[in-house]
């Protein structure tokens, strides 16, 4: 499972494999330098210091000079390896980040919104960071360990295969013990991550809900929840750290045991004339190096698991198949006003059985202004999403100017069809940048757009005009002003089909009416579909479509619909009248 995720994760970044052999060769070159030192000690002792004719200084100097040269080369190998590794891993992860980011934008709205707050951002940021930190810290250690084990084992075998075997035998149970420890560690780390997620969710609640918490004076309650989550997280972390240190200690003890065994067996072999003093001494240095991987294994596991968890989350997102796909060989919408036709369209959200829309048949003539009304949950917003292809019908067919919406090239669709939602999201930056978000425009063109909508006075009242910074998500503007900007932004695209989903709900009624009339005047040929919960909007429309429980129950001009008593529209109208006519005490 872990390996599979890792393999798939690594496959996301083919860059990592480029010249991997070269990197490993450099790693061996780098560790060869380390192993050279014990060899130098052995040679210096046997051939120099304990030379049969008394200490031979020239021999020692020669040996050390040669080793120094080897060390120099190995340092350069290390330099090259690290440079390569950093450049390659950064390249690889930059690719993954962009891939994830792009993929998330390929997903349909429903798919994006089904993810928890902030989770998607983590996919392209912190999850990838975990992989980076694994590759650049643990990865380096892993490669060095690999080189070190290979090189030291080789040198030990060359000195004495018998003594080398003794060392291997001592380390055999360690491998088994560490493996056992690893399994428990894996669980422990998993628990840490779960509790960490819980803790972060409570923290985020205290930030996002700060105002509510203050208004109800329930900060003690939030603090208690936080304390519990923080303490739970600490407890789990302690447990995992105890296991990590235990695993490390096993490696340390094994190194001690191997050293002791080396002395005993080495002396026995030395007495038998099979090993020299220098070789035994060199072995003692080699054993210390050989033990290092066993000691760092536990830390590696944590890094590895974090990276695998990161990879898994990244892969999980990449595995989500976009349910609204860009067509292959898409075609452009024919020029001119757009008419909309729905044939037996049904829709249900993924994973639910109940259909939000059922067998909708509908024709909207090009250039007409249509209002969709109905109670909350009747399916109005879903209808708006289908018409703008932010969602795809479960069954049935939706045609724009006679072309199946699923066949329309995305660029063409987005140029010609625009939705303005209730919560028109604004981006950090200036007012002008937000209006030209959908289409690049010069400042005077932006000003003209606002003027067309009758917003020139409003613009003039802003301190810096189009350059007014609107803050994080437009916080610098009031709710209604944000909607004005979102509407201007949509109008600026010059779309031929505009779908307004309660796009002016926070705008005062007078401004709203003015806006709607301005929109109608400046774009006579545009088809407009408005989801309305105000009577005036419905009254002004060419046609009103009444949606109830996922079906179209009535359609026609306002006046005609009122003629049917006891209809859904008549009841809605009555409620509106009640609302507008309520007696004032």
């Amino acid at each position, binding site marked *: 499972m872990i390996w599979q995720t890792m393999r798939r994760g690594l496959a996301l970044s083919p860059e990592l494999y480029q010249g991997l052999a070269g990197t490993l060769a450099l790693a061996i070159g780098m560790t060869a330098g380390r192993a050279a030192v014990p060899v130098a000690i052995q040679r210096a002792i046997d051939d120099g210091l304990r030379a049969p004719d008394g200490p031979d200084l020239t021999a020692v100097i020669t040996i050390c000079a040669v080793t120094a040269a080897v060390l120099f080369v190995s340092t350069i190998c290390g330099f090259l390896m690290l440079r390569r590794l950093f450049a390659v891993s950064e390249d690889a992860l930059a690719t993954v980040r962009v891939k994830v980011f792009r993929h998330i934008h390929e997903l349909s709205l429903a798919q994006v919104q089904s993810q928890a707050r902030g989770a998607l951002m983590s996919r392209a940021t912190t999850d990838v960071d975990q992989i980076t930190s694994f590759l650049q810290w643990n990865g380096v250690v892993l490669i060095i360990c690999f080189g070190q084990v290979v090189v030291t084992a080789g040198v030990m075998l060359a000195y004495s295969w018998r003594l080398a075997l003794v060392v291997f035998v001592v380390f055999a149970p360690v491998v088994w013990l560490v493996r056992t420890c690893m399994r428990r560690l894996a669980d422990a780390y998993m628990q840490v991550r779960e509790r960490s997620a819980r803790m972060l969710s409570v923290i985020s609640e205290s930030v996002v809900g700060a105002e509510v918490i203050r208004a109800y004076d329930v900060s003690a309650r939030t603090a208690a929840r936080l304390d519990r989550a923080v303490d739970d997280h600490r407890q789990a972390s302690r447990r995992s750290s105890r296991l990590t240190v235990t695993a490390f200690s096993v490696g340390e003890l094994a190194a001690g045991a191997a050293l002791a065994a080396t002395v005993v067996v080495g002396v026995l072999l030395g007495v038998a004339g099979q090993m020299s003093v220098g070789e035994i001494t060199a072995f003692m240095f080699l054993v210390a190096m050989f033990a290092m991987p066993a000691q760092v294994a536990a830390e590696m596991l944590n890094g590895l698991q974090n990276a695998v968890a990161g990879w898994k989350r990244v892969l999980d997102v990449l595995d989500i198949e976009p349910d609204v796909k860009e067509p292959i060989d898409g075609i452009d919408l024919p020029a001119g006003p757009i008419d909309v036709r729905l044939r037996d369209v049904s829709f249900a959200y993924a994973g639910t059985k109940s259909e939000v829309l059922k067998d909708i048949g509908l024709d909207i003539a090009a250039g007409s202004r249509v209002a969709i009304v109905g109670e*909350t949950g009747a399916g109005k917003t879903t209808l708006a999403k289908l018409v703008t292809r932010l969602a795809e019908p479960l069954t049935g067919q939706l045609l724009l100017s006679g072309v199946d919406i699923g066949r329309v090239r995305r660029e063409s669709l987005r140029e010609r069809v625009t939705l303005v939602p209730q919560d028109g999201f604004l981006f950090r930056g200036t007012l002008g940048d937000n209006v030209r978000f959908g289409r690049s425009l010069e400042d005077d063109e932006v000003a003209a757009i606002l003027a067309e909508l009758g917003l020139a006075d409003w613009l003039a009242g802003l301190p810096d005009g189009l350059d007014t910074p609107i803050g994080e998500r437009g916080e610098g503007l009031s709710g209604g002003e944000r909607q004005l900007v979102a509407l201007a932004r949509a109008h600026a695209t010059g779309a031929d089909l505009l779908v307004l989903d309660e796009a002016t709900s926070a705008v005062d009624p007078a401004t709203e009416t003015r806006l709607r009339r301005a929109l109608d005047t400046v774009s006579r040929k545009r088809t407009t579909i408005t989801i309305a919960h105000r009577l005036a909007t419905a009254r002004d429309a060419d046609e009103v479509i009444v949606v109830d429980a996922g079906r179209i129950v009535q359609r026609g001009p306002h006046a005609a619909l009122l003629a049917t008593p006891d209809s859904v529209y008549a009841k809605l109208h009555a409620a509106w009248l009640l609302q507008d*006519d309520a007696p004032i005490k």
Partner: protein
Amino acid sequence: MTERITREIAAKGVRLIGRVIREEPRLFAVSFGGACLVVVLSISGAFVVGAVVERVIVPMVDRGETELALLAGGAAALLGLSALRVVGIFGRRLGSIYLQLELHARYRKKLVRRFLRLPPSWHRRHPTGKLLSHAGSDLEAMWSPGGTLAYAIATVLLLLGTLTALYTIDWAVALVGTILFPSLCTLFAVFTRIVAPKYKRSQSMRANVSSLAHESFDGALTVKSLGREDHQTQRFTDEVRRLREVNVSIGRTRGWHDPLVDTLPSFGTLTVLVIGALRLDQGAIDLGQLTTAAFLFALLDAPLRAIGWLLTAVPRAVAGWERVDAVLSATGDMTYGEQSTHDIGPAELRFDNVGYAYGTRASVLHDITFEVPKGRIVALVGPTGSGKSTLAALAARLIDPDSGRVLLNGYDARDLSAASLAATVSVVAQSSFVFDDTVRANVTLDRPGIDDDAIREALADAQADAFVDALPEGLETRLGERGVTVSGGQRQRLTLARALVGRPGLLVLDDATSAVDPVVEAAIVTGLRTRKQRPTMLVVATRRQTIALADEVVYLEEGRIVATGRHDRLLATVPQYAALLAAYDVKTGVPA
């Protein structure tokens, strides 16, 4: 410039280290004790190895006979040292990990309590993502030196100990160490100086990448409906590339640093061999002492990395500290008074010459004076951006006025205790927040004295009872991130029930039913009007229905009260008001 920054970081780093020790002296002591034990054992280990070579290996191999007792003694000494080292390692590592965990937990609690105490005006200026990373990565970075601190200090002792040990062996051999250790320190210093600003830059690049992703996904609907996926991806790619450049340049620095730290001790060992051979030839030292000296240099490998880690952690830690500290030392807290308004039942609200100029343009208010008598309903009406929400926030004391007073039951809102204020006023905002908890907890917020009947009644008044009953587990259904998702209108009704269940004296509704459709809203309004104990209400109204409910209307324009009075009187006497409401007027132009 960079030099000044480096020095500043170094000075702060030292202070931060002092703080680690002061905050958790006991755990630091455990960790440091363990580290020292490891250090002492390492040095004595080198001597034991030297002695084993000189007294055990050399004589036995030279004489060609084994002395079992001595051999076993040597082996046992090595094994015993290793076992003791394990004890030291447990102390050092568990001590330092527990230390970090303790500090993380403590500062998370501190930080979040700070979040909870800082006023809404502060929260509005600070993006959520940043605050969350303060409690996450910034806080962890801040205390990261705690992980290696004890080991690094012990390593410095190890270096001094090794040097002393070398001098006890031979001055000439010791000279190698005297030259090597300072050069290692210089290497670290140079490395830190080069890499610190790069890490800082990397962190801010990372923040850019995050906030771009955050914004882009939050605005997914807008990005999609305007077809700007490619444009957004291009912007993201540019940011990612900038981050990559910085990180690769960090890699280049680490590229020369890490191998040098690795190999410098080895060069030391070689030099020791050469000089040692010379001294051996002169008869100043024996082979065992030479081995000891060589082993001492080999020991340096791992501990030296600890110093390296500490030094690389410090710049990041300082950056994290600065960010965390900015929150902990943020001022502008709302202070609460001691008084409480004991009146049960409807409250009285009075604005006395209130002015508010802080924050954004849309929230400015001037000379606001009006009164809402007990049990009455006042509607705030005005064009978009006229300051209605700011006024509502002042009434609930989510913000404080810059001038003038807001009086509740005659008390200045600032003199009331937090508990009294919360019991007296409830505010329901347009954007409703739902906790990751059950429906019940979301309504009661664990406030005392709220029984099931009260919850039912509040849910019914907010027209939320039907959909709550339809939820899989009714009141016990979990909402939020890991629970059931409810629609915007349902959320608004739940938050309305949350306000009603506390039986507030004053209910402030800031466009609180905007996502609820007219039929349901009509039912809510009727429910509130016919409630036995109707609270005093201040209602930000954008629908005529709500305006019609009011006993009196306060009409605002550009942050000033233009007119106050009954709806019909304002219609007749205030042309702007009439114009604003004209859009509602169904009597004109409707074919009946």
